């Protein structure tokens, strides 16, 4: 009788944890008792699941209610909506990636290269110090035959007396232009905005040498700063075509050649 009660309590889930463990231990040691328990457990489960008003019937009733409330159809619509939006999300992500790739490949990279070439050219042409660049200037200034006191200027430059140079040059408008060009263009932009302003002023000078030099440096600085690029290319092409200053013509052609490779 005791065993019978234990079996009933066990199969009806009425044992506490300690009782259950003890009984399961007993079941492990007694195969006959285990077979008996399994048999009645299966009977109870079969009744619960498939008997009159069993679980199966209840589930069927609940399923009918869900069907009636269109729960499954709503779930299907929701799924399709999710799928639709998933593709939309994937498409948007793909478009953004393509745009980023396009920007990087077609706009960012060429601009970076263009900037690097202009910077490199300027670096190569940058005078090591003020005096060396002054020597170059002496050669250049020889081209400007209409400048008065030309020899005095050359001497002052060669001796590095630039402050005195300023005073002399201020008396001659063309020479003043060359001085500005020298300090701002060849002086390599220590005050960029002022230099650009001065160079831009000289870019339309009547003096062709002055105009070409200022346009050349202006073009390089425009390329580095990524602004007025069309203007920069126009200047470079113009310089590359002229035959007056060969050195400048070669430099412009080299820069243009490098930029066209991009």
């Amino acid at each position: 009788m005791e065993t019978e009660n234990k079996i009933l309590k066990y199969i009806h889930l009425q044992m506490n944890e300690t009782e259950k463990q003890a009984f399961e231990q007993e079941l492990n040691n007694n195969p006959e008792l285990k077979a008996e328990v399994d048999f009645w457990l299966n009977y109870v489960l079969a009744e619960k699941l498939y008997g009159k008003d069993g679980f199966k019937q209840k589930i069927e009733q609940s399923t009918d209610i869900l069907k009636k409330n269109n729960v499954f159809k709503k779930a299907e619509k929701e799924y399709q909506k999710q799928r639709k939006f998933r593709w939309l999300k994937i498409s948007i992500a793909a478009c953004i990636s393509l745009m980023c790739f396009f920007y990087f490949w077609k706009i960012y990279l060429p601009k970076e290269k263009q900037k690097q070439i202009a910077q490199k050219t300027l670096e190569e042409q940058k005078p090591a110090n003020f005096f060396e660049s002054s020597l170059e200037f002496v050669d250049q200034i020889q081209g400007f035959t209409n400048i008065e006191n030309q020899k005095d200027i050359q001497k002052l430059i060669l001796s590095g007396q630039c402050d005195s140079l300023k005073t002399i040059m201020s008396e001659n408008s063309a020479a003043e232009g060359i001085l500005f060009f020298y300090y701002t263009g060849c002086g390599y932009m220590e005050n960029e905005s002022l230099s650009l302003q001065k160079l831009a002023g000289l870019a339309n000078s009547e003096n062709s040498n002055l105009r070409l030099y200022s346009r050349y440096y202006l073009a390089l600085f425009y390329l580095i700063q990524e602004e007025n690029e069309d203007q920069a290319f126009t200047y470079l092409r113009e310089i590359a075509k002229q035959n007056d200053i060969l050195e400048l013509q070669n430099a412009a052609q080299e820069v243009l050649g490098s930029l066209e490779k991009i």
Partner: protein
Amino acid sequence: MKTEEDQIFFENLQRADSKTLQEFMESKAQKVVNHVLKNSGRVEDAQELLSDCLLELLKRINLPKFVFEGKPELDAYFMRIITNRWRDVLRKKGKTYTVPMEIKKMDTFDTENIFEMAELKELWEKVIQESMKELSTICQICIKAKYFFAWSYEKIFQTYQDEKLNKVELVKSRLQDCKKQFRQKVENHPLYKKIKKDGN
């Protein structure tokens, strides 16, 4: 960690309370439909799968060895039954199956073939029910009262007092006799040997 609310929910589910069943099915419908539609199925398959797996879950949670740890664990357990069952259905149909990430993560400890187990259990339940029907009405009453409703002998006697059960002692001896008959009927059932063979 199970809360008191979880425990109440579990007990209601264990005895298949209609409202709890319906709420549970409603809460799982979307997940099951998503899973089935994503894996070469139709909405009708999802309905059937949900019912079958819920029955399987009820069966399992009514076994003494089942330990309820909390509602989230039960939800995960149910989804595992769903995915395993659907995988087996597809395998039988020869279709491919994608295991969802969250299932992959938790499917590390249970590799039991639920589908075949369920088939075996259904056969077993059929044997028991059919054998029961072959018993006399009085035996069916006694067995059902004692083993299904866990009534005492006194209660059976008081409820079904008739000429054949007019003493408590008679109920006891009748029940012993019915139990023997029932087990014999089960063991002689044509499907019983198949179950024993497959079970082993």
